[in-house]
């Protein structure tokens, strides 16, 4: 089944590496998701596009040359000096360990996101996905939080500079999208909007409501920090309060969604308590916003997600399904389940939704929802005031 207008950027190498054997960020998630989509018939070979390799100049639009040279110097991790020159760039720590050919591997992830954006910006596709992308913490001269190069920022920079587009970046990863926000903090052509677990409790500590952009970019950074244990209803309520209004006001030509899957209740690195159904609802809303405000143009990426077998593949399969206007079937194919159980030696999920019957409600559910609501209300009031002044 071919789905014209929708493209899925794919290269086996995007999933064919790991940062370190026991590292929580597992590129294999991408391959598990792709095989699920193929097994249920939502992804045909004709939907796939290979990433176009990047020039160094593309990476240097965002990243500092000395940083890129440091990353490039690590070809054989075991032989690289774990020197202070590398740790000054955030490299060689438990979060951002050295691995073989790290530049080439991450440059390919960036190439895939740039390809996804190029296809939409040039009108060759309406909506695209690079589920291997979404490295939103990387900074101009520093690796941070499992992210070495910022594929999102490189692709957005190109959409703005090369195609002259206004880009709305929506980040629903459990962690604040700090790298992308700071890289476009004074840029009026890029709206960065992040919903995340409050920085009081979680890395990277930023994403306060008062971070609203600066200079010409004032009013083009939006941050909605949420309480730990936020569940579907409260998350979606806050989304509906803030996101459509911000997108409507900004009037983008293109929406880029970073769909980190770590806001799920079973994610081990964060404390938001969404279900797959709630996450699916948020994906549906973003597709709807793209249709209403951006001529349908949407690029989606992955991001965080540290329950790599049970949660992430189902979340991102549902994401792609929303992108192409389809649904993931309730029962997942036995071939896919058995295949990965055999290969990984772990139990794989058999349904597209969570079994919520066994879930206990969040402690103080009403208080959490009320707190989130009042943060969203005040955020919106603040933003309206800033937007009025501009």
């Amino acid at each position, binding site marked *: 089944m071919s789905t014209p207008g929708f493209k899925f950027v794919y290269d086996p190498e995007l999933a064919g590496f790991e940062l370190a054997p026991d590292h929580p960020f597992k590129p294999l998630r991408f391959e598990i998701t792709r095989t699920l989509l193929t097994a249920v018939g939502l992804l045909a070979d004709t939907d796939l596009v290979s990433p176009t390799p990047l020039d160094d100049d593309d990476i240097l639009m965002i990243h500092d040359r000395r940083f890129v040279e440091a990353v490039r110097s690590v070809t054989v991790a075991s032989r690289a000096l774990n020197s202070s020159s590398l740790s000054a760039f955030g490299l060689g*720590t438990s979060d951002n360990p050295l691995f073989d050919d790290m530049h080439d591997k991450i440059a390919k992830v960036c190439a895939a996101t740039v390809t996804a954006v190029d296809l939409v910006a040039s009108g060759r596709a309406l909506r695209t996905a690079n589920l291997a992308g979404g490295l939103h913490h990387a900074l101009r001269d520093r690796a941070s939080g499992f992210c070495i190069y910022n594929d999102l920022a490189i692709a957005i920079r190109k959409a703005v500079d090369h195609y002259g587009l206004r880009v709305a970046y929506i980040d629903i990863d459990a962690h604040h999208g700090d790298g992308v926000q700071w890289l476009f903090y004074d840029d009026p052509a890029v709206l960065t909007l992040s919903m995340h677990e409050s920085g009081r409790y979680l*890395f990277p*500590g930023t994403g306060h409501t*008062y971070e609203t952009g600066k200079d010409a970019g004032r009013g083009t950074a939006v941050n909605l920090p949420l309480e*730990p*244990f936020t569940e579907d209803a409260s998350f979606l309520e806050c989304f509906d309060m803030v996101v459509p209004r911000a997108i409507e006001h900004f009037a983008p030509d293109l929406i880029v969604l970073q769909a980190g899957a770590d806001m799920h209740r079973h994610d081990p*690195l964060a404390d938001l308590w969404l279900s797959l159904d709630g996450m699916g609802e948020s994906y549906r809303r973003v597709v709807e916003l793209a249709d209403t405000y951006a001529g349908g143009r949407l690029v989606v990426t992955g991001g965080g997600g540290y329950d790599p077998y049970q949660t992430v593949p189902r979340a991102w399969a549902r994401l792609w399904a929303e992108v192409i206007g389809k649904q993931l079937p309730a029962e997942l194919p036995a071939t896919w389940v058995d295949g990965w159980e055999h290969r990984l030696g772990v139990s794989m999920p058999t349904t597209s939704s969570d079994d919520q019957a066994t879930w206990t409600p969040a*402690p103080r559910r009403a208080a959490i929802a009320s707190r989130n609501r009042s*943060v969203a209300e005040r955020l919106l009031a603040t933003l309206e005031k800033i937007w009025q002044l501009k």
Partner: protein
Amino acid sequence: MLVSDVMTRKVVAIGPDTPIRDVQTLMEQRNIRHFPILQSRSNAEPDALIGIVSDRDVRLVGADHPRAPAGVTSAHPISQLMVFPVLTAHPDDPIEETAKVLRENKIGAMPVMDDGRLVGIVTGIDMLDALVRMSGVYEAASRLEVEVANRPGALADLLGHVAARNVNVSSVMTTRGDPDTVTFVLRVSTVDGHGLARHLRDQGFSVPWPPEPGSDDVPRSGGRAAAIEPVTDDSTQQA
């Protein structure tokens, strides 16, 4: 961090005969709140620091206010208003010492003197800037509070466990409750702050922050609000 690291070097100083109204104008135009007053000397010695005025002293002139200086008008020289003797800092003073002096004397700024010469001015805002820089708050990090016994080696023990996980530390700050314990505020460059907190708890450390996931009531020292109770949030006020 020393006073020389945070002070303003370009100081606008004035002479004692400057009319108050000229100081008012300077204050508004240059957005300056404290003026050291220098008296030039006939010999080759540097000008002498003979007083200081703040924006509040100047604003009260001619105001209908119980603390307005009696009989002083804006035509009078600034020497009528200046405060002396002046508390001063030295470029090599540690900033924590300077912060203490500012706070204990309830003043907003101190001229910085080196060998009898005015070389800068240091203000309460500089102290806040220093705190911000020392806290490492501009670096992406997870924030932990760890309470340890007040004994030699306690911090080394703690950081040994952090180092063993190959996690870099952006800052360490110390707060004290009762005399037997010290709480260290660590900002660490890792996504998995919860994992590190769990590991430290397993090693017997008391980790009041971040709260343990799933814990319903979170004990906080010093009567602070429970961690995830809805409390008044001031985070939108600045915008």
